[in-house]
């Protein structure tokens, strides 16, 4: 059986189809946020929040209370905490992220050990698993995507101005703190719903690579916002297909696809610049 036949046979399976649909929604959500996260120089926030989510899931499993909800609550609190630390005490945002990252990871490992593993696959949580894509999760992701798009449209130009330059936006009468907290909270929600597909260790890449890639080639902000989901979507679909062919966890293949696209785009841009100079 060729690789193509194998993939086509997989794609007839409902749970694989569900994983692709969820993956596409996750790609759309994270790549829309990714533009703002990269431009605000808070690219590590996804990492910090993913590790906070690990701590949150471990708390949920340990006390026996809806792990995803516990994780969601702690991640939103963590996102508020990171923003608060960065804004009020003027500590660098990477240090604020590091505080929450290590707190989440340490408490997660401690509770995982104390709970003797909770009978769950740690590997699936860390690297993602198509098997974790459920119908409930599809509905949850779709609702979150709709809410995020609505929130962004509600105040798009203010969010862009705050990202462009916070001091200037504040001097123009925009309440920039609100948009800082909003972006962090949305990043937290994106992290939570992306865990099953991308896994805790690789989730941050979904919140960075699409935006970073689009910024390399876009000639305007509008183009950046269009290209970012295109790159995000491509990396998720290609990554899922490769993971099926190789029978490995999807997180790594999605991230490597995204990195491949970034490398290709940067190379193409450099060649273009070289040719136009000649």
């Amino acid at each position: 059986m060729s690789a193509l036949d194998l993939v086509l046979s997989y794609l007839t399976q409902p749970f694989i189809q569900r994983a692709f649909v969820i993956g596409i929604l996750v790609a759309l959500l994270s790549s829309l946020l990714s533009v703002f996260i990269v431009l605000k120089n808070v690219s590590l926030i996804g990492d910090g929040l993913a590790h906070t989510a690990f701590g949150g899931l471990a708390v949920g499993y340990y006390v026996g209370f809806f792990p995803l909800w516990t994780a969601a609550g702690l991640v939103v609190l963590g996102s508020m905490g990171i923003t608060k630390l960065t804004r009020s005490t003027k500590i660098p945002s990477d240090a604020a992220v590091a505080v929450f990252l290590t707190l989440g990871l340490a408490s997660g490992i401690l509770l995982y050990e104390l709970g003797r593993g909770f009978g769950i696959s740690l590997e699936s949580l860390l690297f993602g698993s198509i098997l974790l894509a459920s119908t409930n999760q599809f509905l949850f992701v779709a609702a979150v995507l709709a809410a995020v798009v609505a929130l962004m449209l509600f105040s798009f130009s203010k969010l862009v101005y705050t990202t462009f330059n916070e001091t200037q936006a504040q001097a123009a009468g925009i309440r920039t703190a609100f948009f800082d907290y909003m972006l962090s909270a949305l990043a937290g929600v994106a992290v939570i719903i992306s865990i099953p597909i991308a896994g805790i260790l690789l989730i941050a890449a979904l919140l960075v690579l699409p935006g970073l890639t689009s910024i390399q080639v876009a000639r305007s902000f509008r183009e950046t916002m269009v290209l970012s989901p295109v790159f995000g979507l491509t990396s998720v679909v290609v990554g899922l297909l490769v993971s099926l062919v190789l029978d490995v966890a999807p997180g790594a293949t999605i991230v490597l696809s995204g990195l491949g696209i970034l490398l290709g785009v940067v190379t193409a841009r450099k060649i273009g610049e070289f040719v136009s100079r000649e």
Partner: protein
Amino acid sequence: MSDATEPVLELRDVAVEYPGGIRAIDGIRLRVFPHDLLGLLGPNGAGKSTLLAVILGLQKPTRGSVRLFGRPVSPEGLRRLGYVPQRPQSTYPDFPATVLETVLLGRAARARPFRGVTRRERKEAEEILTLLDIHDLRGRRIGRLSGGQTQRVFVAKALVGKPELLVLDEPTSGMDAQSRREFYLMLVHLNRDLGITIVLTSHEVHSVTKLASRIAFLSGTLLFDGDPVAFERHPAHIDLEDFPEAVMPKP
């Protein structure tokens, strides 16, 4: 619109002290009236940027108060003010926005929820680009412009918000002589022909005393506030003219 007899901006005995007892500005009393073109002069370290930060609500005064359009500084008041920062080209140089998109950010504070840029707003922005002689740059990325061009784009961004008061922080720093002259002529046009009140900080004594309708001289405290001709006879003028880049001691 502002009443011509009421100040658009009033500073009442404003002082700012940083941790460690460092006093940046002290006892500042200043009133700016509609149609003024106020040149706020002073050497480096005189407190000009601190004073602007207080006016823009970015820095709380340790003592005293600021009134913008007759009320304490608030987001609503700031929406009637246009601000042009110092060296805006240092703003994220790779930000992927065109000149036109950057200029349209000037309407963001007044933008209604769920409303994108209207055809009328785009037309107004293009007219402002034409007015400032940078219309041909509208499709270029903001980070790819010269210092002088970027400064004009930021003035255009401030004007798109239809400000009654335009505040500029050392807008010509880093510009060559020709660009500086053109920039100052543009400010005079905005003030005299369009009636926009302007406050501009600078340490370029010659140029600013020629174009301003009023001069305020700052060196920690306000040492002079009055007519540009009278300022030319003031001792502070001579000090600043001789050592324009010098850091003058606080009195």
